[in-house]
């Protein structure tokens, strides 16, 4: 079983839709949870970063962590064509060196 599992999609939505991206993880020691966005032929860039359980909001983006079910979510409101990218979830234990990534979900927002 992979440390972090992510539905690879692809996911295609119309402009303005609410997007929900999800991951599950297996290691209960994970404390930090991240979402990276990766445009085609570019490196991953950090989008959101949360510690432990709860919600974090940044503009149109909301990251949610439920440690009881080991579930990580990213919601995008009012999705834009510029949001079209691959979204990677990642998790790590405090003080550890190995950041575990999901395989990524490719999102396309259609104008």
């Amino acid at each position, binding site marked *: 079983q992979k440390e972090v599992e*992510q539905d690879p999609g692809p996911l295609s939505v119309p402009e303005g839709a609410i997007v929900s991206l999800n991951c599950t993880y297996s290691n209960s020691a994970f404390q*930090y949870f*991240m979402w990276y966005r990766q445009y085609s032929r*570019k*490196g991953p860039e950090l989008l959101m970063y949360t*510690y432990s359980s709860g919600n974090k909001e940044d503009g149109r983006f909301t990251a949610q962590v439920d440690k009881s079910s080991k579930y990580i979510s990213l919601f995008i409101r009012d999705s834009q064509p510029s949001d079209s990218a691959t979204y990677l979830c990642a998790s790590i234990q*405090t003080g550890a*060196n190995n*950041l575990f990534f999901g*395989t990524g979900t490719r999102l396309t927002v259609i104008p």
Partner: protein
Amino acid sequence: NAGVTQTPKFRVLKTGQSMTLLCAQDMNHEYMYWYRQDPGMGLRLIHYSVGEGTTAKGEVPDGYNVSRLKKQNFLLGLESAAPSQTSVYFCATKGAGAGQETQYFGPGTRLLVL
């Protein structure tokens, strides 16, 4: 402030050839990492360094060597390239200290081994 840079951007090798990928950072980060990204496999850690002069193996280290002679540079070497090493390679850096768990990535190096 360039952040994390990688050289070269793209390279084609023949089986058995060697090459070195360079990662450079101006973020004064202690930790540096080399990942490879393959379709359906996600990002996998090859080697990492927790400071100048240190290196350690990650999840998929076989066929690769690394060196961290200077804090700002992390080199990834392929001594005898194989087609299975065709991939996109990313370098990442991270600061030390509590709460600094976020890794910052370079733009990647695309490697094709024929």
